[in-house]
């Protein structure tokens, strides 16, 4: 405490020593301050004009104090405890940031990188492969059809006056085009006509779809074969009435279900061994006598030799095509029937020689002549006519039932309309009269009809 007093004493007699000029500096500062102080005290008396000056002095004073306070204010920043959680967050953000960096999508320029278009190239090459396969398959089908035609042209022109009529020509008597009619890339047809007893013969070559890659691949799982279908339309009086089906087992059930005439007529299943034909065939026949006549020595030999190629033989005088798809309504209209012989053969197109296929055609023509010569005996004829009458009866019954249903519906409709009219009648009096009239009419209907008979005594 003694030392602290000494400087204060010393400061009073500082005017004589060497640092006098510094003191002048201190005194100026003190002098300005006392002026300031004197002005502070005097403003009240001189009015406002000077107040802004005094205000600036106050500001400077405050700033000094503020500075003093700021120093205290940021003291806590130095204190490390304040920033306990902050460091980890900032570091964590720092670490994950590059991962979420997403490259904005800007459209590539077309010509810059072709290899990113690998899918498009794949698609185009697929189309090219499909097109090449289309050309190859188309020409192969054409070659097969042409080779079949060349092998059969002579045989057909011997048996038919016109081979290859396409229906366009005006005059029928000119010779046919001798060409196959191309229905689609894999279906060719040939119409031959001009033979005694036979309206015409339609040959349809249904080849595999070699030109379509999709079905070609599907064929790997489900193998198929080229098919030759020959359909002969007989004249009305050239064939007796019987129905017969010789087909391999798998096919016969489907045919039996699909075909109208087969489902109606040929119900008897015969044993193939009895007629010495291979057991892989099923035999459905209506008239046994006709079956025996058709399966003569030549036909049996053909069936044995070409067991693999023959798919089915369908001979029928009541042929009316396939059944209607919707069986909700029993068929009421008697379908238009034709006398046909249908042969379906499987062609093994890998074998180049057409001899076997030619033999099949001779079998068809022989069968045609055979069927023309068949005449049923009296009993067989009666049995056949009875079957046809039964079927016709069935159709008429179905038609009659349909007509009755329609009439009943009309009657119900009329009665409902009558009742509705009575209900809508405004005047109760008229309503009652209408009801009575209705009841009397129904009562009269219910009473059984009786005739009054007068008995003369």
């Amino acid at each position: 405490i003694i030392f602290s007093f000494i400087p204060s004493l010393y400061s009073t007699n500082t005017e004589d020593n060497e640092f006098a000029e510094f003191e002048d500096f201190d005194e100026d500062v003190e002098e300005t301050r006392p002026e300031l102080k004197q002005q502070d005290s005097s403003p009240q008396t001189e009015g406002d004009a000077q107040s802004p000056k005094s205000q600036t002095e106050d500001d400077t004073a405050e700033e000094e104090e503020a500075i003093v306070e700021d120093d205290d204010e940021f003291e806590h920043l130095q204190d490390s405890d304040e920033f306990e959680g902050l460091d980890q967050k900032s570091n964590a953000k720092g670490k994950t940031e590059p991962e979420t960096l997403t490259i904005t999508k800007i459209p590539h320029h077309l010509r810059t990188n072709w290899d990113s278009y690998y899918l498009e190239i794949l698609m185009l090459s697929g189309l090219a492969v499909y097109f090449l396969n289309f050309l190859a398959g188309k020409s192969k089908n054409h070659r097969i059809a042409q080779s079949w035609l060349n092998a059969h042209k002579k045989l057909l022109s011997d048996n038919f006056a016109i081979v290859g009529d396409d229906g366009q020509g005006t005059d029928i008597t000119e010779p046919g085009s001798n060409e196959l009619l191309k229905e689609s890339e894999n279906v060719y047809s040939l119409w031959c006509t001009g033979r005694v007893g036979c309206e015409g013969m339609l040959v349809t070559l249904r080849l595999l779809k070699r030109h379509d890659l999709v079905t070609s691949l599907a064929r790997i799982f489900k193998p198929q074969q080229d098919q030759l279908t020959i359909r002969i339309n007989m004249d009305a009086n050239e064939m007796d009435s019987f129905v017969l089906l010789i087909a391999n087992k798998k096919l016969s059930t489907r045919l039996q279900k699909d075909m109208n005439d087969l489902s109606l007529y040929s119900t008897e299943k015969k044993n193939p061994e009895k007629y010495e034909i291979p057991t892989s065939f099923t035999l459905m026949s209506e008239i046994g006598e006709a079956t025996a006549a058709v399966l003569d020595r030549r036909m049996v030999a053909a069936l044995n030799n070409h067991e693999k190629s023959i798919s089915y033989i369908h001979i029928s005088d009541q042929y009316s095509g396939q059944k209607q798809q919707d069986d909700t309504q029993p068929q009421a209209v008697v379908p238009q029937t034709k006398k046909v012989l249908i042969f379906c053969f499987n062609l093994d197109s890998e074998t180049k020689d057409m001899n076997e296929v030619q033999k099949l055609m001779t079998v068809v023509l022989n069968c045609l002549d055979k069927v023309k010569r068949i005449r049923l005996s009296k009993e067989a004829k009666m049995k056949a006519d009875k079957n046809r009458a039964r079927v016709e009866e069935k159709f008429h019954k179905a038609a009659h039932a349909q007509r009755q249903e329609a009439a009943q519906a009309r009657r119900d409709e009329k009665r409902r309309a009558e009742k509705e009219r009575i209900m809508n009648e405004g005047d109760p009096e008229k309503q009652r009269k209408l009801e009575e009239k209705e009841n009397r009419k129904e009562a009269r209907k219910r009473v059984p009809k009786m005739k009054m008979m007068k008995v003369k005594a």
Partner: protein
Amino acid sequence: MPNYTFLAFCMLYLVFTPYFQLALFFRRYPKAPANSVVDDPTPDYMNLLGMVFSMCGLMLKMKWCAWAAVYCAFISFANSRSSEDTKQMLSSFMLSISAVVMSYLQNPQPMSPPW
């Protein structure tokens, strides 16, 4: 004497010519033979599918739909019957090719597969 006799002679000659006899048995090629029932539905289905795919390709800008439409048009062309008119074929081709072109004009990015 008008030449009735000559006309009668011609008629008689005609009746006995072989061709005339056979003509009794001629029948024209039946336009819709019964076996057309076993018709092939593939071209019609493929045509319809092609139309649907090209609509999707155009409207929803899906490139793989447009490419599928081109394939469907090709398949329906391959299986088309010769009796079918070519206008239908041409329209399905034009529609599918325009679908592909339009979808690439809108954004030339390579196609992203549907899976």
